[in-house]
């Protein structure tokens, strides 16, 4: 047993729990979101300790980075665009109605029971029981890539991943529908330092995102992590107003959203047409096909995540300008 690392694990676990409690109890919503982002980053660190670097990368890039940007954008919208600037808005965005303390205690008691059950189940579960390790390592030579997580995502369980890309597509369609006709949020004023910062880091982010995608074949990384890092490029471009979405760009945007899904499904159908099961790639071309799918899915993920951050469909902007003119 390695004593210093156990102390580190205990401290990290304690910090994660404390941050989770703090992010739900702190009065200022901005502080809550920032605490949540720190919580996500520390969780990613904990997953590195559990030898899950792929999951840690995904959590840091998507679960914390992109989600944090979405939360901060929503907070900005609620406070400065539609909400009042009064004292109340700093604490919450929804008016409070008092809840009987009995209801709160009953909820807490039920949650406690559920947690107790989970803890008993977890502690009573067999340690390190046989998983899918043997099956995966047996099938690895036929997968076309060297990294097991990528092999599972893009080959053994490719159907799951296809559906995951479809979920992202559905999310962007839903967001565009929900925000239809919503007034444009005035962009926050960013200083000159921010512009310079964006100019410096943009090329670096592009390189890191592309590297993550490429490295996914034999090392931790892959389409989702790379796509999320590339989405950060889109976020920076949108925030610095270096790129302003126009109604005419919707066609390109829609193509980018569906590109990953279409190519993924097309490859599956193509493979299936050759007398095989869908996603049963021919062994000679497995790596090329996986890289093709990953590359195009990455573009789709980056475009979709950036669009989710931007929210409203560009056409609403034009409608508003028309209305202002008349």
């Amino acid at each position, binding site marked *: 047993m390695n004593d210093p690392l156990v102390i580190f694990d*205990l401290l990290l*676990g304690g910090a994660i729990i404390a941050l989770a409690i703090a992010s739900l109890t702190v009065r200022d919503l901005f502080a809550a979101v920032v605490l949540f982002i720190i919580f996500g980053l520390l969780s990613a660190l904990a997953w590195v300790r559990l030898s899950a670097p792929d999951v840690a990368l995904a959590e840091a890039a998507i*679960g914390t980075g992109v989600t944090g940007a979405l939360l901060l954008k929503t907070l900005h919208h609620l406070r400065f665009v539609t909400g009042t600037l009064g004292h109340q808005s700093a604490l919450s965005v929804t008016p409070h109605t008092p809840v009987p303390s009995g209801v709160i205690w009953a909820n807490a008691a039920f949650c406690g029971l559920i947690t107790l059950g989970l803890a008993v189940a977890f502690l009573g579960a067999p340690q390190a029981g046989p*998983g899918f390790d043997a099956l*995966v390592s047996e099938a690895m030579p036929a997968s076309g890539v060297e990294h097991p997580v990528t092999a599972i995502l893009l080959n053994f369980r490719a159907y799951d991943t296809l559906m995951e890309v479809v979920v992202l597509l559905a999310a962007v369609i839903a967001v565009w529908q929900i925000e239809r006709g919503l007034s444009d949020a005035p962009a926050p004023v960013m200083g000159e330092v921010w512009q310079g910062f964006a100019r410096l880091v943009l090329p670096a982010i592009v390189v890191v995102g592309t590297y993550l995608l490429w490295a996914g074949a034999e090392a931790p990384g892959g389409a989702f992590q790379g796509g999320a890092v590339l989405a950060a490029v889109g976020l920076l471009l949108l925030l610095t107003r270096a790129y302003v979405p126009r109604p005419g760009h919707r066609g390109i945007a829609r193509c980018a959203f569906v590109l990953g899904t279409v190519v993924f499904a097309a490859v599956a159908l193509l493979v299936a047409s050759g007398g095989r099961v869908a996603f049963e790639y021919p062994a000679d071309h497995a790596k090329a096909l996986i890289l093709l799918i990953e590359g195009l899915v990455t573009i789709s993920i980056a475009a979709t995540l950036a669009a989710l951050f931007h929210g409203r469909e560009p056409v609403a902007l034009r409608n508003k300008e028309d209305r202002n003119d008349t």
Partner: protein
Amino acid sequence: MTPDLIYGLTGIAVFAIGLVGALCAQDRLRRVLALKLCSVGAGFLLVVGAWRTPPMAPDPVPHALVITGIVVMVSATAVALALIRRLQTLESSDDDD
């Protein structure tokens, strides 16, 4: 005390905090945060389940499941936040009338 025990209990605690938050929080944004905490707690348990005492490599299948879960969760969060923004806009225009 092995990492899987420590982080497994951490995950259960985070899930419980999220569950209480989702039921008891009054603010919409905070409820979304609470549900996010639940998803991270569930991710902890899956990653802990995949862990093997080094130098054995961990089980990659739960890892792939958690990555899928993270991407699905960001989609769900984006839609929930868009609904919150829309609701707030409707409520503030109701107040103006």
